[in-house]
């Protein structure tokens, strides 16, 4: 399939907002989504952005049946740091619309994040996956990554809401 991958610009935030809701539906967490298109515009395109994005686009003749979208996939990433290995890149989201899956677009998006990370001096690409998401887990492992949680016993920990408010008390 003919597609291209390019850096997201602020005008893409509308499509990214649309697709992140589709991803939320897929992960069954739509009522947890607080981020708006405006948040993406502010936090992704400021002087010191909180994230960067890339989008996958198809030509006009391959646009989606419904609503005629040509932006059909995206990845969001940001730079992170390992105090042992140095610069790293974290892929927060990877999404391809269902009718465009199985055509190498997801792999191309992920590779592009790795390439951008390598160009920025990173030597690791990290992300998380829900272990019951078998098709995603199989896809990732087939690409040569490894599961740190299984291998090293690392558990993901989170503080938010009241617990975070309480922690932030001086």
């Amino acid at each position, binding site marked *: 399939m003919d597609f291209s991958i390019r850096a997201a610009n602020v005008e893409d935030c509308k499509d990214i907002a649309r697709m992140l809701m589709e991803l939320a539906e897929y992960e069954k967490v739509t009522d947890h989504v607080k*981020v708006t298109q405006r948040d993406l515009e502010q936090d992704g395109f400021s002087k010191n952005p909180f994230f960067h994005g890339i989008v996958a686009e198809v030509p006009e003749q391959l646009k989606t049946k419904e609503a005629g979208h040509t932006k059909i996939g995206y990845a969001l990433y940001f*730079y*992170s740091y390992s*105090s042992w290995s140095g610069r790293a890149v974290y892929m927060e989201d990877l999404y391809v619309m269902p009718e465009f899956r199985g055509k190498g677009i997801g792999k191309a998006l992920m590779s592009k994040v790795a390439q951008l990370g390598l160009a920025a001096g990173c030597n690791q*690409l990290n992300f998380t996956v829900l272990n019951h998401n078998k098709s995603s887990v199989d896809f990732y492992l087939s690409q040569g990554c490894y599961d740190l949680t299984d291998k090293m016993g690392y558990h*993901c920990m989170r503080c938010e809401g009241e617990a975070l408010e309480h922690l*932030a008390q001086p």
Partner: protein
Amino acid sequence: MDFKIRAGTKDDCKDMSRMIKELAVFEKKGLDEVKTSHEELEKDGFCQNPFFEFLVAEVPEEHKSKEGFRVVGYTLYYYTFSTWKGRAMYMEDLYVMEEFRGKGIGGGLMSKVAEMGKKNLCVRLQFSVSDWNTPAREFYAAKGAQDITEKDGWHFIRFEGQEFDDLAESAPKD
């Protein structure tokens, strides 16, 4: 014990580098797995778009460590983004030298990270802990942290070394 938490400076990178190695040993890693030098920390923490920020815990002269160090703990963190919730942070390291544990320094460092995040409108703080590190797991649970690996099944995945290079190499050419 009297201690102060403050933002790390370029000059603190030597102490942080020392403590990064101590943390690696604690995490049962060989010192050869620590690739970062203090010069690299200085570069990556103080460039135009820094890769991280850090805080240090400092004690007065009369409480310095056996080897004479006054900087006795640190936390290294960076800003992230959750496409569900928005601005967030990740606490990469939290470490207090052994002889200074149990005195509230770790809690003080972690609280300060949360406070910094709050100022920047962050709504989430994430980090990781090794499943065998029971004291740390209990410490974090007492602070209200949730283990989302246990709760929801989140797993950390990593590409590094040759596999990372191969993945980058396979990206579509512009």
